[in-house]
């Protein structure tokens, strides 16, 4: 919140610069000696001045914020030097963090050691000095920027072009946020994973058959290494995705065929949005439903037939996930089936094919790449789906082929590893990032494959 005041100050000064620029432009327009001709509309001169005033100042503010932390840290370290003796780096930082929070009025004072109290007072004093300095520096920067703009401002100045160039830079920066996000994902996953692989060998992680990270909570515990063999998780993910696809593919594909080939336009208009509701329901709702309605149903049904179905079974999670994925398959497949040219269908009818034969032997083969693409996208969703499996599939890492038992998935383990208090740098926390990396790579490959297949297919008929 301490950023509030400086930002407001800069914006206010920027607004002043804008008024001043506009005023100047209007004044020129009235004058005879310039011929009353301005290059741009007066507003552009205003924005030009405001940009010169505010942009450098905001940049300065950003740099200041980054530089301020370490400087204050050193200052505080000097203040509490007596207390810090004999503390390691982590404890040092924790203590100083506490002091800072207390000075901001957060948290409760626990140890009223005089050095600490003095440090808090000192911190409060220095931070008000720093804030005052910042305000002065920002005002100076604004004044300097405005002065520069003042020297440049003239009726012949191409203010519009300059403003548009600045706007274009802003637009370009927005477009690169998407790229930055991807880079951020890759770097954060990769960085933490590499630290994890320094503790646990890659081969143990990828091919190990036993997963029990819970033993590795604290470093000083017996058997604290834990075991990080992720094969049971991959198996669980695979099994649950398989069950989900066994539900979603037939139902989704059949729905798509019916919608595209048989349904009347009225029926389509009503039913298609209804089916798409399935994709819009939050996954946590499905998870709740799977855990509290479907799983007990399956367990009781299994008991009736003499199976033993665990109360948290891969089957329940997979089935509900499959239902969620129906619209993913049906709407995309519907689109590709409708996109198959009429001429192909009519050719088939001309040869005496029934509608069934035309669909199965002509339309579906032609639409196959698109359908395959939609299925791949659905698989990628199934692998990355979290809430349903967290709530319904269970936590124990069983390596089993029995869908009636509890299984766990990559996403479930990421969640359980990271929920609650964690110690950064412990193998347990880092393992979550390694799992995230695997997940990211798997879904990325599936997505790219799906997009390539769909794109290639579109080119053929459009």
């Amino acid at each position, binding site marked *: *919140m301490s950023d509030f005041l400086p930002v407001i100050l800069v914006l206010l000064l920027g607004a002043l610069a804008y008024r001043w620029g506009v005023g100047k432009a209007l004044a020129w327009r009235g004058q005879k000696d310039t011929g009353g001709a301005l290059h741009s509309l007066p507003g552009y001169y205003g924005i030009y001045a405001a940009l010169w005033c505010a942009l450098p100042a905001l940049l300065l503010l950003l740099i200041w914020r980054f530089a301020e932390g370490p400087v204050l840290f050193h200052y505080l370290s000097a203040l509490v030097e007596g207390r810090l003796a004999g503390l390691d780096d982590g404890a040092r930082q924790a203590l100083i963090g506490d002091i800072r929070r207390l000075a901001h009025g957060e948290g409760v004072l626990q140890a009223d050691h005089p050095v600490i109290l003095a440090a808090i007072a000192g911190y409060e004093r220095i931070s008000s000095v720093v804030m005052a300095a910042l305000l002065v520096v920002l005002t100076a920067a604004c004044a300097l920027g405005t002065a520069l703009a003042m020297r440049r401002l003239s009726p012949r100045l191409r203010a*519009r072009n300059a403003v548009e160039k600045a706007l*274009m830079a802003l*637009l370009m920066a927005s*477009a690169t*946020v*998407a*790229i930055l*996000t*991807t880079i*951020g*994902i890759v770097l954060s*996953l990769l*960085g*933490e994973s590499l630290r994890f692989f320094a503790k646990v060998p890659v081969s143990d992680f990828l091919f190990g058959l036993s997963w029990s990270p819970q033993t590795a909570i604290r470093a000083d515990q017996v058997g604290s290494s834990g075991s990080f063999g992720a094969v049971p998780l991959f198996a669980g993910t695979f099994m649950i995705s398989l069950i989900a696809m066994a539900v979603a593919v*037939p*139902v989704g594909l*059949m*729905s798509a*065929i*019916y*919608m595209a*080939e*048989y349904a009347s336009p009225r029926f389509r208009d009503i*039913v298609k949005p*209804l*089916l798409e*509701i399935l994709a*819009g329901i*939050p*996954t*946590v*709702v499905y*998870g709740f*439903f799977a855990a*509290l309605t479907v799983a007990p149903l399956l367990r009781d049904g299994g008991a009736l037939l003499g199976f033993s179905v665990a109360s948290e079974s891969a089957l329940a999670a997979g089935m509900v996930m499959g*239902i969620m994925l129906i619209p993913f398959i*049906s709407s995309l497949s519907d689109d590709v089936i409708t996109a198959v040219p009429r001429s192909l269908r009519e050719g088939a009818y001309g040869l005496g094919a*029934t509608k*069934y*034969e035309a*669909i*199965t032997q002509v339309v579906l083969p032609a639409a196959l790449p698109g359908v395959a693409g939609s299925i791949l996208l659905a698989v*990628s969703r199934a692998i*990355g789906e*979290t*809430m349903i499996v*967290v*709530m319904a599939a269970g936590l124990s890492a069983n390596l089993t082929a029995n869908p009636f038992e509890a299984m766990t998935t990559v996403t479930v383990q*990421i*969640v359980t590893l*990271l929920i609650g208090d964690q110690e950064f740098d412990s193998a347990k926390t880092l393992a*979550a*990032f390694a799992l*995230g990396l695997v*997940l*990211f790579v798997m*879904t990325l490959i599936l*997505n*790219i494959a799906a997009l390539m297949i769909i794109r290639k297919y579109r080119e053929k008929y459009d």
Partner: protein
Amino acid sequence: MTDIPLTDTARKEEARERLLKKRYARERRLRFFGMAAIASALLFLLFLFATIFYQGWGAFFQTQIRLEVTLDPARIDPQGTRTSDSLVRGDYGGAIKKALKQRFGKIRKRRERRQLYQLIGSAGADTLRRLVMAEPDLVGQKVTVWLPASDDVDQYFKGYVDPDLKEDERRLSDRQIAWVEELRRDGAIRKVFNTTFFTSGDSREPEQAGILGAVLGSFYTLLVTLAISFPLGVMAAVYLEEFAPKNRISDIIEVNINNLAAVPSIVFGLLGLAIFLDLFGLPRSAPLVGGLVLALMTLPTIIISSRAALKAVPPSIREAALGIGASRVQVVTHHVLPLALPGMMTGTIIGLAQALGETAPLLMIGMVAFIVDLPGGIMDPATVLPVQIYLWADSPERAFVEKTSAAIMVLLAFLIVMNLLAVLLRRKFERRW
């Protein structure tokens, strides 16, 4: 085929007939399967909604018990000053216990006495305290008040507990059921609209738990998401659609956006944990961080739909504006953008609806904490509606199942409203050129 004797014509005809029948049967089967697939999906949808509605409807009501409580000054006002400072320390639970004892007569066994006290949960004392704090004059009088029943009584009164079960299989004992039935005969127990559910934060006690904290958390989170993703998304879309040169870099950005749209949401949570919490040191559990993560997640959706909206504006508009001397930026800001804005807003609302239902990434950044206080801003620790649902779904009490379903109903209601808004917006501003 010429070597088939003529006498076989009839048989041939018959075989063809049979084949044709078979072919038509196949066709009918396909059609039936298609219908069955759609019907099963829709039936499931109906089943889902019906179960949740059935389970959750009760949570909108609260069971209350009428009691005559004596507000003994010695008990209620320990300092005898009638100030709120003293009244807040009063032993309201004790007053309720005494009132219960008076109502049902002396009970010898300690176990049964404890069971009697369990009829009214800890919310009862809070209600009484609030009442007395508002009207200190009541101290010393005998008042008749409606107090919220404990969650077990509540569940029984709503008919979720089967009294035919064996005593040790249900949470209410035979004796307690007898008391509740006695209250029912006297008209001293009733069901009223549950305002607590909409006006309070989370609680360990089901009868005191509400969703307001989660709703506010969701609101602040979405506010941050909207403030970041809408301008960024629109600007990115404008750049890519109107200004970007068709080169490799634009291609990479485009593929990248399509891929981001399909990255699992939990990966965004990991990003938030590593970058926003670990690197930037932003506070855990804050709507600010949640909003940032969700903004990055919805950005691709908004960019894609905004680009579609820009594409739908016909080139003639741009050409006409260029023709009368507008610059390319002016063409976009004065003409194209206003025409495309409704479509962009529709896409944004749909993106926000997705963000509202998202749970997994928020678990990563600590929005799962148990938080009783209502959040007052984007830096306060908070939880959001879907995470609240997840937390309640994990709670063992039967009453929380009801609460969970009710919270789901509220969440779905918000989603429906948002989607309807998007549809209306599209209907109102949709233009065919």
